[in-house]
Every structure is written in C-alpha cells, then in structure tokens.
C-alpha cells in the first residue's frame, strides 16, 4: 500500500510541476537567480530557469514566445511595444521590480572620487583620454563597456552620453561581472553597471552638472532623487501569460519577501506604495 501511495504522491507532484522561464538583462541575472533559488525552496512544484543575454535579447524572446518573463534594465521602446501589440493584440504587462543606481566604477587605487556628467560624456566618447584631464594621475584612460544588446549600455548612452556613441576604443564585455574583473586589473580602467556588482572596485560619486554636488550611489540618495543615474529594473510579460504560476511568481518578487532578496543581492527595494 505504501509504495502505491508514494507513486500517487509523486504523480500528483509531477502533474502540478510548473516551469517558468526568465530571459533578458545581464544586470538582473544575479537577482533573478537568487529569486529563483528562494522561490523554488518555498514552492517545490515550481522550476524557475533564469538566463541573461541582454535586455534586447529578452524582449526578442518575449516576442517570439521563448520566455515567460523578460528581465529588462531599461524601459521597453515604443517600437517594441508596437511589435508586442501586433503579436499579442495588447501591450506587454510591465512590472517595476526594484531600483538600481547605475554605478561608475574605477580601480580601487584610482584617487578620483567623483565625476560629473560632462566629464563622463567626454571620457566615454573618447574626447578625454587621460585621467590628468579630470584631476587624476597622468595615466591613459581605459574604457570598459557592454554590448549593444544590453539595457545598461542603452540607458548609460541615453542618459549620460546624450545619445552620443561610445568611443571606438571601449572594450565590449559580455556582462557587468566581466566589466568589474577588467577594471580590477586595470589601473586606468573605468566602466559602468548595476549597483549590486562592484566588489573589488570603487564606486564613484556622480554629479549632474560640472562643478555640482556629487552624490554616492546609496539607497537614500536614490530615494531622494539625488544620485543622478537611477533606474527601475523591469519584468515584462505577455498579457496572456500573466496568470497562474507566472503571476504568482511576479507577485512574490514584489512582495516583502521578494524585496528582501532584492536588498540581499544589493539592489534597492521598491517603496511599498509602488508595488
């Protein structure tokens, strides 16, 4: 009798098993994986698979139906919304999941403490090529950036570089972790990425105007709107899929429990009233 019961229970669990696929932003991969790990422990019948590739790749996957949820570190573009409307007959559902201070990193030994938007624009477009020009040592600047399918790449280009192109000398790295690794070994290195990354490098203070007050990328400065490169990290989902196990997972991510994971990973939780 006991083996039969065991088989029946196993069958029941198998029947209830749910697979959720998540694809997109590399910035959000560590957060997504941590969410998946904690959620699967609490919900044994659910499997959550998380992969990166960049926000653009995630949105393409959402469109062709190869993912349930798209992680994106930038808002979806109007042209992509139009494609979703064509495909799903409705706009995709957008969920803000948490806040990020897009950080500018340099090597720990670099004496520079802060940079302004005009200085960052000059550095990343290749007009400023030596740290001396921004008050640092006489050392060539070495640029680290992301692939153009990355939401972080697009966000930085749009909000900091005024949509100008990155310098041709920028080393294109496959993820923020690779950006950090590169800078940690490079005295003249500078790069950008999510606040949850950055062990072994220094996060610079940033000011919007030249000569203006520069602020650290802290939770308080983000909430107060002082740190100038702040963004939401998003989940996008096809309307028809926002039900059942997938909807439950998204609801959990923006619940107190999910937001505790956000904090644990290093991003900033959404204010309660915005969930």
């Amino acid at each position, binding site marked *: 009798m006991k083996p039969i019961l065991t088989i029946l229970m196993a069958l029941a669990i198998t029947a209830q098993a749910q697979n959720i696929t998540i694809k997109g932003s590399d910035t959000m991969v560590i957060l997504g994986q941590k969410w998946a790990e904690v959620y699967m422990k609490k919900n044994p019948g659910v499997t959550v698979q998380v992969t990166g590739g*960049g926000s*653009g*790749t995630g949105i*393409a*996957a959402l*469109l*062709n139906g*190869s993912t349930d949820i798209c992680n994106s570190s930038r808002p979806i573009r109007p042209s992509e919304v139009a494609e979703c409307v064509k495909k799903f007959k*409705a*706009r995709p*559902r*957008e*969920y*803000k999941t948490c806040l990020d201070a897009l950080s500018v990193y340099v090597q720990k030994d670099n004496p520079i403490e802060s940079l302004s938007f005009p200085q960052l624009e000059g550095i990343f477009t290749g007009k400023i090529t030596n740290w001396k020009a921004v008050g640092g040592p006489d050392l060539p600047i070495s640029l680290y950036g992301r*692939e*153009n*399918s990355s939401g972080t790449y697009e966000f930085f280009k749009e909000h900091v570089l005024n949509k100008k*192109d*990155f*310098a*041709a000398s*920028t080393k*294109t790295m496959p993820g923020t972790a690779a950006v950090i690794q590169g800078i940690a070994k490079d005295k003249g290195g500078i790069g950008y990425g999510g606040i949850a990354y950055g062990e072994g490098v220094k996060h610079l203070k940033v000011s919007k105007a030249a000569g203006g007050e520069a602020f650290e990328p802290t939770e308080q400065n983000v909430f107060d709107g002082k740190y100038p490169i702040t963004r939401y990290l998003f989940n996008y989902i096809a*309307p028809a899929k*926002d039900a059942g196990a997938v*909807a439950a997972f998204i*609801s959990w991510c*923006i619940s107190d429990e999910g937001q505790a994971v956000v904090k644990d990973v290093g991003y900033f939780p959404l204010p*309660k*009233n*915005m*969930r």
Partner: protein
Amino acid sequence: MKHRLITITLGAALALGCAQTARAQGGDAILDLLTKKGIITQREANDVREQLDSQMAQAVELHGKGKFSSWLDGVKFSGDLRLRADNISHEDYTRDSDRLRFRYRLRLGMEFQFQEWATVNFRLASGDGDPVSTNQSFTDTFKKKPITIDTISVTLQPPGWNWVKVIGGKMENPIWQPKFNSPMVYDNDVTPEGVAEVLQYTFGANSQYRLFGQFGQFVLDEISTTSSRNNSRDPFLLDFQAGIEAGFGGELPKKPKLKVTAAGGFMLTHNVNNTGYTPFSDSGNRGNANGSGSFTNSPLADFNVVYGRGEIAYLISEKNFLGTPSVLTLSGEVDKNIAGAYETLTGSSQTIDPDQTLGWTFQLGFGEAKKKGEWQIAYQYKHQEADSTFDSLTDSDWGTGGIDRKGHCIKGAYNVRDWWQLGVSTFLTSKISNRPNSGHNTRGGIGPDHGQEMLRIIVDSSFKF
C-alpha cells in the same frame, strides 16, 4: 470592483480628450500616478490599462468602418530619381565607337493595402519598356520621353499565415540574389510576369534562423502568329529557389554580428526555341548560341540553370569606421546551364567554342550606404560564359549588357543625405569566347578584336522620395 470603478472613471475622463494617442498617454500617466501614490497596485494598473486599450481598439475599429474613403489610409507612395553619366570606351576605338551618354531613371510606386491580407503594388518607370533597364537617355532634340508600367501585382497573404504569400501580375523579382555590383541571372530592373509563391519559416530562440523558398512561374511571351506550327508553344520561365538565413551573436534577430544567407535553385525555360519567339534584345543583351535555319533568331534550346548563391555579412565592430557601419560583406554565386544542347552546340549555326555554360562571381565589400554620411565600397570579379544563362535578362551594365564577358567591377557609394546618394561604378571587361560578334555586347570576338577590353564608368546621383 475597484478595477471597474477606475476603468469607468478613466474611460469617462479620457473620452473628453481628443487625439487617441494623447488619450492613451494620458491614461498611462494617471495610472502611473495612482500606482505611485499607492492607491492601486501595479497588477491593477496593468488590468485597467488592458481594458482601456481594448475599448480604444473597438472605438477605432468602429470609426474606421464609418469612413467613406478609408481605402486612402492604406495607400503608400514611394519613388526615386537617378541621374547618370555613362561613359564607354574601348581599347581599340577605331573598331568600336566610344560613347558618353546622360540618362535618367524615374520610378513612381504606389501600394494599396485593401485588407491586411491583400496588397496591390503599382509602379511606373521611365524607359522604353526594356526588361533589363528603366534608363532613358537624354536624346532626340528634347523629344518627350515615355513612361511605362514597371510593376502591377497583387500580393495575397492569408490572415495568420505569415509563412506564405502568393503574388500575381508583373512583380518585383521575388527570386533572391546577393547584392552584387553586377548581378548574374537577373538584372535588378527585371520585373517578371506571372505567379510566384513566397514561403518562409522562422525559428530559433531569438528567431534568428529563417528558411525561405521562392517559386516563380513566369510568362515570357504569348505567340499570336498563326503561320508558325509552334504557335501553341508559348515560352515560359520557371525558377525554384530554397535557402536559409541565419544570424549569430549581436542583437538578434535584427542586428546580428554575423549574418549568413545561402540559397540554391533551378532556373529553367520552356519553349524559348520556338521559332515564333524572338527574345527581347533592344538592350543588346545577346550572346547565347542560336539555332540554325529557320531557328536562327531563337535560342538553340531551353536553359536548365542550376545555381548556388550566398552572402556573409560580418559586423567587425559596433563602432562606425569613418562614418559608416563596419560591415564586411562577402558574396558569391555559381551558375551552370546543364542543358545538353549548349554543351555540344548540336543543331546550332554556332560551332565555335561549345560548352560555354558556366558562370561564377565573387564580391568583397565594406560599409553600408543607407543614411547620411554612410558609404560603401565593393570589388567584384565576374566570369559569365556565353550560354551560362538566358542572356535577355542579365545585367545591362555589364559590358554594354549581356553575357560572354569576364572582368572586374568596383563600385562606391556615399550618402550625402538620407535621401541623396552619389555613386561611381567602374567595369573593366573583355570577351571570353572566340565566337564572332553578334551584338555590341560581344565586342572582342575573333580576329583583331579578340581580347579587346572595354572600360565603362558610370556616375550616379540618386534621390529617394
């Protein structure tokens, strides 16, 4: 209940607005504000947004049904004008006249989308009806110049079947060829007449792979003469092509780092050796071996051309190089006419150099000229033997049009504006076979002409509107 209340309130508030877009944006702003204030959750905002979108879509549909001339909304216009200076010089100018001519090409296109699944394409073009050229020379003491129908076709795509469409009429060539400076089988101006089926299937995690098939059944002529015993044997041209397009790396599927396109196919004619059929030759596109006796005006036999063609585009860097995308493009094609008669020339008045049935080419290019400040340059080598394909349809710029020539082509283009492009093409070609001249395209035949080179330089200024 809360959703319903918010939807009704917002719907009523937004109905007072005017433009649909403004209404949608206003609705979003209000929902965002309500979420920010903690009055509704993100999920509730999404539910309401979806209901509002759905109501708006219904309203737009009702509005569209009530319009008298809604068909005008489905009309798109397009056009381009090209001004050209065309210089042809021969190595031995005492035997062949050098030429300098100034020409234009005008095309005016209209697309009527009657239904989501039915579109009519209509295009007028300059020229005298030459199948391989819409150029018109400035000549004849300011004589008025003709306008012809370049395309008139209907494209049907069953709703929800985005993998298939059927085209009927005189159409833009559905058969894929790489972007050669000088194409092999069909001049870029060829607009075939008949029916074509275009199939495609996209797959892969990022929709980065596409299988495609193009099948054309085209009419070459309708023979009306009653004196010919072959009057019922109308000539046709069929082309069956299948291929794959694959993207790797980069931003898939739209901007891959590496894009590979390859296709193979079979182009065959049927009844082109009918004595009642004389292939169009105003362009001077001659060079194929003809029949003998009463068949001297017709090609020796039907063509059975097996071909393989491909293109590899590699994005070297995300950064532009001197203002143009850093794209390196390598393309190539091999054509072989396997019709036995052309291998032996049995039954032809032509006996010199049988088996001129192979054509091949390769091209290496850099850059892309689509937007202001962008440029591209490409080098092509081409070897196209006299019977490798049907000469009436080959590139009119190669030599002075036609076949039985080999040589080089370098082409450069620069976009002064998004809508204005300057281009220069240089062709240095010579005849392949020892066959006698049968048209000005075959200069350099037997005797002292053989091996004579022809240099053609074309300067274009093109405007899109």
